[in-house]
């Protein structure tokens, strides 16, 4: 039994109370700053930039926008420019330059309804190939954008006319290990998870996990797809081993029950793809580590390869507040530094220790 001190510890380093509802918070790459996105009580959106200094978060800039902002990503930005792409409640996709945030660098009316989730790939040295942004919306569509192409998405995944549209709650990029391959994974409110291959422009895999999918994430965007974690309502999350796809059974997975309520977010540690953190509706965080099985694939009765899922271990769990923690972001520069924000109108900077040993 490991002594409690050798387990990773989660420390609440900075806690900042905000006067608006914050939906998303992200580290600005290559800096000690972070940005918070949300909406004021008066119905307008807000972008705030803070800097971590002397054990405190100091407000550097605040910008107000006409519509509340739901989500943002730096994934498609170059390391030098670090523009943030945001989706707002009105279905617009904007890309802002935080040095001059008055006018967006790129703007388009992406969806008819709120943009629930956004992800980017190809920037920051992650993923070869063109920088792209994917957005998923309540109108049931998932669209992929390239900042060099105005108005029109590069790919659009939508239900055929006549089919019922399910809200898309989450999207994620993956499999971007060379400049042509890309995969987008989308999770819907009825439990559907769909994996689209952008190279072939086809649906590669889909499954249903019975409860609405709150968050999906690949363990790393820029490798041959390895693992996918999907979290859902009712406190369950699934880890899929994506290396071996069986023609009928799909991908092997394990599921784990935790948090006792909705698991809002899952985020992998950028420095170690086998460690991830889940954030729950009761204001708690769980830190997990995935272990690979001895053999990642085996032959089933028909002689076809089928994957074998490993196991997850709980490394640490802490309770931060009583309200759900809606967003979680690991710092890409410093291992163990993490940012989370919740519906208790506060944003916290956490330090997780001993991740090397874990």
């Amino acid at each position, binding site marked *: 039994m490991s002594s409690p001190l050798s387990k990773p*510890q*989660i*420390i*609440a380093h900075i806690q900042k109370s905000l006067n608006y509802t914050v939906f998303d918070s992200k580290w600005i790459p*290559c*800096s*000690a700053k972070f940005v918070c996105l949300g909406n004021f009580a008066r119905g307008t959106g807000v972008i705030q930039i803070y800097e*971590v200094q*002397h*054990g405190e978060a100091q407000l550097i800039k605040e910008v107000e926008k006409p519509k509340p902002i739901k989500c943002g990503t730096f994934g498609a930005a*170059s*390391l*030098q420019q670090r523009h943030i792409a945001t989706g707002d409640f009105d279905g617009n996709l904007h890309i802002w330059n935080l040095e001059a945030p008055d006018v967006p660098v790129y703007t388009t009316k992406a969806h008819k309804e709120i943009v629930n989730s956004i992800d980017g790939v*190809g920037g920051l*040295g992650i993923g*070869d*190939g*063109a920088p792209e942004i994917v957005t998923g919306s309540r109108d049931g569509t998932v669209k*992929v954008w*390239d900042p060099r192409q105005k108005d029109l*998405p*590069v*790919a659009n*995944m*939508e*239900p*055929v006319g006549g*089919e*019922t549209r399910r809200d898309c709650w989450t999207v994620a990029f993956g499999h971007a*290990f*060379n*400049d*042509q*391959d890309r995969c987008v994974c989308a999770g819907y409110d009825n439990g*559907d998870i*769909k994996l689209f*291959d*952008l190279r072939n*422009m*086809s*649906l*590669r*895999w889909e499954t249903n996990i019975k409860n609405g999918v709150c968050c999906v994430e690949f363990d*790393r965007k820029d490798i*041959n797809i*390895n693992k996918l974690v999907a979290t859902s309502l009712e406190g369950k999350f699934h880890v899929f081993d994506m290396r071996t*796809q*069986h*023609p009928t059974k799909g991908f092997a997975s394990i599921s784990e*029950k*935790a948090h006792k309520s909705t698991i809002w977010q899952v985020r992998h540690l950028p420095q170690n793809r*086998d460690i991830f953190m889940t954030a729950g509706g009761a204001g*708690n965080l769980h830190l997990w580590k995935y272990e690979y099985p001895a053999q*990642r694939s085996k032959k089933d009765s028909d002689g076809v390869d089928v994957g074998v899922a490993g196991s997850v271990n709980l490394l*640490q*769990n*802490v*309770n931060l507040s009583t309200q759900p923690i809606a967003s979680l972001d690991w710092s890409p520069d*410093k291992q163990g530094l993490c940012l989370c924000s919740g519906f208790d109108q506060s944003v916290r900077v956490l*330090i997780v220790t001993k991740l090397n040993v874990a």
Partner: protein
Amino acid sequence: MAQIHLSTDSPNTQQSPHRALVKQRAAMSGDAVFSLPATDFSTKVPVEHLDYDFIEKCKDVKYLEKILRILRSGEEGIYPHLIKFCEGHLEKLNPKSRALRKETPVATEASFSKDEWNQIMDDLRTWAEETKKSETLLKQEPVFDLLIEKIPPVRSSNSFVPLNEKSFPKQRTNSSKHVLPRDYQEWDKFDVKEECNKVDGVLKNDPPAIINTGHPNIKRAVDASLLSQQEKFLLANREKDKGNEAFRANDYEEAVAYYSRSLSILPTVSAYNNRAQAEINLQHWHNAMRDCQQVLELESRNKKALLRRATVHNHMGNFQMASEDLRMVLQEEPNNATAIQLLSKIERKLSDCLPKQQSKGKKILIEELEEQAEQRACPVQPSQPVGGEESSAAPAERGDMGNAQKKPHSRGDGGPHSESSNSHHGHWRGKGGASDKYKVTEESKVANGSSKRGSTASVQGDKRSGTKGATGGGKAEESVNLDAPCGALPPHLSRLKNEGNLLFKNGQFADALEKYSQAIQGYTDSGIDSPEDLCILYSNRAACYLKDGNSQDCIQDCTRALELQPFSLKPLLRRAMAYESLERYKKAYVDYKTVLQIDISVQAAHDSVN
């Protein structure tokens, strides 16, 4: 008494009063509960089971979890000690049990020792400052327009991927009906074979059967020419991390690919080291050897590289080289468990093949003397390389000692049972069966390595650099020319030296002495300027003299050795011992002190000084 009355429930009556009390309470409240069946959800767990002995004996994890749940809920009363006991037992059985998960509050300053806390805070502070600096630097750099051109074009074709809840086939036919207008740049991606296949009706993209076969093409090199040093460093590190992760998941091929990518951006010692380990796991011995050599070029005392090279040698059958590498490691870190283990295995293997040669020892000596005489006359001979790595001659050249040379021995072969009648050397020659390519690349690296190490004081370094120096001299003839006149001597002499070493190890000091003398003669005859080798030979001969009891000659040889290479440990040490045996304690003392100055860890010197 109430106790006796109630304790008829359980058969174990020999308990501490405390336990009996607890049981009594449990039993009593059990009575109370039984009268209220409605709230009794613990129908499956009778109250008697909420008991130390039962819990201890129970092996069923699920049942224990149930018991724990009931105890925690406090329905039967609150027994904190029992709860802890149950938890402890459950942990022993199943440490990963969900019931053991506890919500802890977030750690704060109070949960750490002062030192740890300060460390964490300082770490964060330095990081914040550094990042600010690098950020300002980043902002000042001009934006590279060239970089923008290098990005692939916008993904072509506005294709709609209709989302069906279930059907794959429907969607397939949908997309194949429309021939969407394509972008010119698609011609860049035009794949002739694929198109032919499509035309022939071989549609291999059945959506259900998209199975990930094997490893997709990971480009082995990354074009990082336009990136700044900082970005290169970041990118190289990231690729290396990816490699590490793949390694941990046992995907060694992938790991090698990522390490290669990292190295193509920025060569680093750790990336080479890691790639070497991955190649070892894949059993690509030559690649692993190449990588180890790279590391040792950059950092000649890198322990991991030495250990890994020793492993590779071991598998390739070069036991001598392996043991030398291991000895180097042990010099620096005498407690290295892996090194010790591996070394003992190798020694055993070495000693296994030695007895074979022992018996033929005498006979071969004579043979060799003759052959050597021959050789001195016609110094054409290519010869038995030591440990293969150093042969300056190509395998074809190993023409010889009058023995029909067979194909170079297979690598990794246990060697000692070589077919060559010259089994005395076969031991070393066998390991030489490496491919030409490998040797040629090795040579250049070996030469570099030796030039770096030429000045070390350690004798092992000397020994190896000596042998390499020998080939360094002979490296001049890289061509596969059988008639090269001068290249043969150094390897020939190093062979002599190794024979001497072997004899010495066997305790045949006189013979060893002879060998060394011959080697020294050979050196002086050929006029090769290789002080390290000569120094080693003298030093070794001195050791032989010492063992024979001939202290005078020993001192003489040591002095000569020290003339060639001052401050080399072994000659100093031996000279000190020789003086001691001659009772010239002052001189001995001086020499021991010198040794200690050079290397404070030589135990023998310490003892003798006292």
